[in-house]
């Protein structure tokens, strides 16, 4: 029996790291997917902060019509129509068909239509088909863009207003 224990004792440290390695290896394999999803979702959904003042159009929500706000809008669902707000964030998986107007527009989902904003950010998961009218644009590699990029420097201060007028 003592020999059994002595045998087991050296074996245990061997088996332990082996066991420990097994869950470690699948964890990183599944992690990148989740991390990528979370990374894509996180800058757009800090839920505790978002829940306070921001309007959230969650995944299960679909809006047909116009959306207007003087504050921020976070879209994770589907919108068919125009969106106008100070900051518009279109999360990954979200779909917007129409014109997105704002001071800042961050896109991780898909927009079919037009973006008019002072600052436009297209993340790697963005899918944009249509024109982008901007003063400041950032496009991460991986983003799909089909359309024209037009810089609009006409007025620097309150810029959403003049763009609105042009759109209508």
């Amino acid at each position: 029996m003592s020999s059994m224990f002595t045998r087991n004792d050296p074996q245990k440290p061997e088996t332990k790291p082996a066991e420990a390695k097994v869950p470690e290896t699948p964890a990183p394999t599944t992690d990148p997917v989740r991390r990528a999803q979370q990374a894509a979702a996180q800058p757009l959904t800090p839920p505790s902060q978002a829940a306070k003042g921001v309007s959230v159009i969650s995944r299960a929500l679909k809006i047909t019509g116009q959306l207007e706000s003087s504050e921020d809008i976070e879209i994770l669902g589907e919108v068919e129509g125009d969106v106008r707000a100070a900051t518009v964030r279109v999360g990954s998986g979200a779909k917007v068909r129409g014109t997105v107007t704002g001071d800042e527009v961050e896109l991780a989902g898909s927009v079919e239509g037009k973006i008019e904003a002072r600052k436009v950010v297209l993340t790697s998961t963005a899918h944009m088909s249509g024109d982008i009218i901007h003063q400041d644009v950032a496009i991460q590699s991986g983003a799909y863009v089909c359309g024209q990029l037009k810089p609009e420097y006409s007025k620097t201060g309150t810029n959403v207003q003049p763009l609105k007028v042009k759109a209508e």
Partner: protein
Amino acid sequence: MFAQSRRAEVQDQEPPASRLGRTLKVTGTVDMDGELYVQGTVSGRINAIRVILGTESHVEGDVVAQEVRVEGHFSGRIFALHVTVESSANVTGRIFHNTVSVAQGARIDGRMPWRPPSYFETLTQLPETRP
């Protein structure tokens, strides 16, 4: 297996209640498969399972849901099995309900017709055609 279950959990966590903030104005149809919290202005139609019209909400149009709680300004029609009208509410129009509760202090102008539960089942299938 683990990865799938974890993903499912993540997905369960992700769709929280939607919220239409104070400054938000929606014109058109709002379709929600879950709970919707409205603080802003909506003119049009709201379809959801559970709707809370907050104290500062101004809603005009139809609301179709299983459960509706009204705390704000509403004019139009509500079609819901369970309706709660809070004391801060100001409702104009019709409330089609199966069960309703109205808090003291609420202002209601209109009719509150009772309907059997079957009425609401058919309503969810054909929300557009019903009066």
